[in-house]
């Protein structure tokens, strides 16, 4: 069984093709880069609409299949930005009608975990999902992906991106902050916010920006920002790991590319005798392959959706999804 999955929740419009044995036949994408400032939802949606056709065609060519071999269409139904979600959903509905094959809407966050399990070769991990739009510590328990901890305000990736932008670094800011941080030497005290199992990054961001204004070097501030923010994430992950007694740790999402975060999580995992994995970059960032694969899992475990049930769900929570395939 072959599924074509469409991802569209934020910057990236992605199309992936997978089969039921977990082979990824294609994974293509196009990313919207705002000219200035943060993401403009309608502009992003327009960008996605303009490129949807090309990316879909590219993916089908890459997979070396004919459209008639596609048995299922999956799409990211949520959570995400409304206009962007609607564009991806529309593309998916059109394809499903044209090919006359079923359609399933999948949860974007759950898809990140599933592609991580597949490509990171882990069975039942504590997942640290950190990106520009989400920050969640997730573990499977009785039929659902439970969110053990999450951000109370802005996502980790957003914190790093906004910091970069405000000090004049070009998009995407994350890698630039990482480079700066590697040259930082002096730790400057920043607010550390772990509340119970949740994290908060907005106070940290505004303090870091104040320090730059006050004349501290961007290198030292970037270093302090990363160390403080990552320590909070790793601490919550550690609590979740100890609590669930799982033996695998999976890092995914756009921020997974950060080497320092990887290093910290690896050393925490080692101390608990757990295995640490990061999937290849193309499966950490937003991608269509994860949607295709999760669509297959859902469909093959009995999910069926009528066309009128494919409305997008901007605030669809990870732990609302019943995981029928585990």
């Amino acid at each position, binding site marked *: 069984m072959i599924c074509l999955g469409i991802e569209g929740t934020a910057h990236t419009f992605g199309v992936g093709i997978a089969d039921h044995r977990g082979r990824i036949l294609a994974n293509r994408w196009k990313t919207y880069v705002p000219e200035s400032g943060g993401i403009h939802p309608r502009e992003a949606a327009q960008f996605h609409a303009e490129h949807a056709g090309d990316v879909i065609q590219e993916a089908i060519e890459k997979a070396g299949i004919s459209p008639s071999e596609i048995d299922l269409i999956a799409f990211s139904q949520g959570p995400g930005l409304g206009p962007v979600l609607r564009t991806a959903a529309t593309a998916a509905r059109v394809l499903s009608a044209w090919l006359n094959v079923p359609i399933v809407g999948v949860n974007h966050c759950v898809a990140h975990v599933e592609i991580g399990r597949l490509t990171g070769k882990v069975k039942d991990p504590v997942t640290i999902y950190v990106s520009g739009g989400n920050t969640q510590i997730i573990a499977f328990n009785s039929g659902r992906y439970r969110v053990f901890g999450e951000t109370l305000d802005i996502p980790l990736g957003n914190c790093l991106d906004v910091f970069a932008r405000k000090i004049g670094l070009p998009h995407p800011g994350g890698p630039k902050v990482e480079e700066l941080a590697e040259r930082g030497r002096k730790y400057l005290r920043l607010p550390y916010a772990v509340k119970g199992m949740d994290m908060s990054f907005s106070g940290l961001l505004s303090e870091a920006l104040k320090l730059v204004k006050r004349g501290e070097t961007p290198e030292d501030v970037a270093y302090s920002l990363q160390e403080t923010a990552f*320590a909070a994430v790793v601490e919550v992950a550690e609590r979740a790991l100890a*609590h669930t007694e799982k033996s695998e740790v999976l890092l995914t999402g756009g921020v997974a590319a950060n080497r320092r975060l990887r290093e910290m*999580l690896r050393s925490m995992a080692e101390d608990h005798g757990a295995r640490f994995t990061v999937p290849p970059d193309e499966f950490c960032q937003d991608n269509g392959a994860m949607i295709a694969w999760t669509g297959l899992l859902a469909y093959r475990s009995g999910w069926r959706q009528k066309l009128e049930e494919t409305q997008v769900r901007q605030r669809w*929570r990870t*732990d609302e999804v019943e995981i029928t395939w585990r």
Partner: protein
Amino acid sequence: MEMIKKGAEADLYLADFSSVLHAGKSGKVVLKLRVPKRYRIREIDSWLRKQRTSLEAKLMIDAKKAGVPTPTVLEVRPDDASIVMSFCEGKQLKKVLDKLPAKKRRQICRKIGRYIARLHLSGIVHGDLTTSNIILERNGRLVLIDFGLGDYDSSVEARGVDLHLLRRALESVHFRIADEAYRLVVREYRRTFGKGAAEIIRRAEEISKRGRYVAREERAWR
């Protein structure tokens, strides 16, 4: 010294009074030690351990002032991230609640409700209210332990989480009596807390429905 609990954040040891405090008294004390974490830089690590050690000791003392029995803090050493406290000899409520006679059990539930309300009224949330963190002493006294996740927080959300966590613990470990037990806790909580209790109890319901907190299987993990 004998280790009695190894957790994600701290280790607990049982020791002789004299060996820890260099005083002439005899008896058992508990030493709680926050262990360094090598994943974070030293500056953050030592600051956090120090600050949390002070906070925890302060919470325990303030809880006691508010009329909630807690272990007595005998010494705080923020620089070593350690607290020495009295050892409460008794049983974890988790292990005995189901076996108690109904009358005694109901009395305990009401007492728990009263204690939570007293904590909340003095601006404290416990942060990890489970029946493993309540000790029933032989003389019938209830003692609340482990304020390691506690905080000074007067928000409806934080208070709601406290009630919610207790309910989860009751449902997962004491499912046979959970409904009645939680009802009694809440009734007494409402009575002691007074104005504003209804909103907190409602919030606790809402948090349960959000489904993000897992039914805790009780484990000594922290």
